[in-house]
């Protein structure tokens, strides 16, 4: 098969995503008061409602409705005051009533958008001629969101007997309804995505947004956030949509990218060889890096959708929506811009910190106690050193960053200090002093060392004077050795050059 970039020169990919997110931070299920927990023993958190027992009736979880409205506000959706829950019928025992309670044509949230900043290597997937790119190759892709609707998750089924746990050969299946009825929001994009990278970035941004809202733990790995990708391709310059296929079993950002990449290339190969792309659901096999057919859709499924008579309509008041709006915290984009404007952070660092609410909180706690000029150093530490640690506090990072910013320690030493204090309450200052790491910035003392080294390393001095300026690195090293690591390498470098140029 051809490579993606080659394919995308001739073909345009049209990608839409359907993203399901479980509202894992709630206490209870969508339509009953069973505890929301998937880790318990099978069928621990079940009641007549979520087991679909005859006579049981649903009552919607207020916090779930608030959560979806917040999700809609954070993704620039129009909140629809009037909407209904619908029943979507299909006979499969993972949905205890044999219908799923979901929403109809009108969802709580409609017509939103998220703007993606596509930068770096990923931006190259999109041919330059199809979008206006900045000088560094980056571009902005506005992605429309059709809707976000509220629904409930299905039970977990384990297929046993037969080979490899495959459904089709299993002798029987075991059902655990703990997950059945978990509040689930489904976001559907318009088919506005054009590259696998854009799809990956959209998912990432959505995850950052939902994490910031605190409505879900958004784990692709554990399935609390799931994504189906629809993709079709068409010849560049044409506007008619091709036949789309639907990608399932995507449980990482990498899988999303790779599955779409594979599928685009596969479709191109099929079409270029004069074949036909069938409308079908395909399963991504990460280990084999390919998609395989799950089922062919010959006709549209008929779910007999109709408004659920057991659930009163929704007529959300402005007041309700405004209360939700007031609870939407500062979102990643705004936070990133503030970090750039107020703290002078690099855009990439600012975006990375702002994208993860836990990191952003940690960062803001750390910067609260440091001088303004230390803030970029804090960002540097947070982005480059903290991720490798297990348990360091924001106070420790603040202290460490101040030392680093004052050139009292090197970056390498900072890493070493972090390793020592990780998981303890020790103050970095104390470690630095105890271990004699603190670098001297006393010019007189350092000059003495410089003189001693120059006197000893006559060969290198000569080489420098002959034009091999690189040799200064060796001399800095000698100075560091002579000072047993306590001298500041930047100052040594400066003093050596002054002395050699004189």
């Amino acid at each position, binding site marked *: 098969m051809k490579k993606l970039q080659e394919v995308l020169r001739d073909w345009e990919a049209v990608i839409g995503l359907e993203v*399901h997110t479980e509202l894992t931070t709630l*206490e209870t299920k969508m339509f009953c008061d069973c505890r929301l927990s998937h880790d318990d023993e099978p069928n621990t958190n079940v009641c007549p409602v979520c087991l679909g027992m005859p006579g049981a009736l649903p009552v919607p979880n207020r916090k779930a409705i608030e959560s979806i409205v917040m999700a809609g506000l954070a993704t620039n959706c129009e909140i629809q005051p009037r909407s209904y829950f619908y029943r979507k019928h299909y006979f499969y025992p993972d949905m205890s009533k044999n219908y799923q309670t979901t929403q109809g044509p009108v969802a709580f949230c409609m017509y939103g958008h998220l703007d993606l900043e596509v930068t770096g290597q990923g931006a190259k997937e999109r041919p330059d001629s199809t979008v206006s790119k900045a000088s560094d190759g980056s571009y902005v892709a506005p992605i429309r969101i059709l809707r976000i609707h509220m629904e409930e998750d299905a039970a977990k*089924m384990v297929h046993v007997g037969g080979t490899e746990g495959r*459904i089709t050969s299993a002798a029987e299946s*075991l059902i655990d309804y703990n997950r059945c009825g978990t509040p689930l929001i489904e976001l559907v994009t318009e088919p506005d995505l054009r590259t696998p990278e854009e799809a990956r970035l959209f998912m990432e941004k959505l995850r950052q947004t939902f994490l910031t809202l605190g409505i879900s733990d958004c784990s692709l790995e554990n399935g609390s956030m799931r994504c189906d990708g629809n993709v079709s391709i068409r010849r560049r310059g044409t506007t008619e949509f091709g036949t789309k296929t639907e990608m399932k079993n995507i449980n990482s950002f990498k899988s999303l990218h790779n599955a779409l990449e594979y599928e685009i290339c596969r479709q191109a190969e099929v079409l270029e060889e004069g074949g036909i792309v069938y409308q079908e659901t395909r399963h991504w096999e990460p280990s084999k890096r390919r998609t395989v057919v799950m089922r062919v859709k010959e006709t549209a499924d008929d779910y007999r959708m109709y*408004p659920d008579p057991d659930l009163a309509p929704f007529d959300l*008041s402005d007041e309700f929506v405004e209360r939700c709006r007031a609870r939407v915290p500062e979102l990643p984009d705004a936070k990133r811009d503030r970090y750039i404007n107020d703290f002078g952070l690099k855009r990439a660092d600012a975006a990375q910190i702002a994208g993860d609410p836990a990191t952003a909180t940690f960062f803001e706690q750390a910067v609260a106690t440091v001088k303004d000029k230390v803030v970029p150093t804090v960002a540097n530490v947070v982005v480059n050193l903290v991720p490798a640690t297990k348990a360091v506090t924001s106070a420790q990072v603040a202290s460490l960053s101040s030392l680093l910013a004052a050139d009292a320690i090197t970056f390498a030493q900072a890493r070493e200090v972090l390793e020592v204090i990780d998981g303890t309450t020790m103050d970095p200052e104390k470690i630095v002093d105890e271990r004699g790491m603190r670098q001297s910035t006393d010019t007189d003392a350092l000059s003495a060392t410089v003189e001693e080294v120059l006197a000893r390393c006559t060969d290198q001095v000569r080489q420098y004077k002959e034009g091999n300026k690189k040799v200064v690195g060796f001399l800095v090293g000698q100075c560091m050795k002579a000072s047993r690591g306590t001298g500041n390498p930047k100052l040594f470098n400066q003093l050596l050059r002054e002395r050699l140029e004189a």
Partner: protein
Amino acid sequence: MALTREDVRGIADYARIALTEEELDEMTTYMNEAVEMLQPIREYDLEGVEPTFHPIGDLSNVMAGDTPNAHGRSLDIDVALSNAGASQGRTFRVPSILGDEGGDR
């Protein structure tokens, strides 16, 4: 247009009700009679008439708090499984799915 025997067979398949050939004949007769009875609905000009899905007046926005087991309805495992035709350990058991994957969700 009358429903044919094959139409009715398709509906029975969808509704997961196995009908015998004889039952299928009776059901086809019944379905056509019943649908005939519904014709008054189709004779209305309903332009601009809002549907009433719920006969509940202005009742709307009915929601509940997010408190676990607030109504004490959680079922013990033996009660949860007590009416099931087949179970295994703490789970409900069903025979082979055989490619029957339910719908898209």
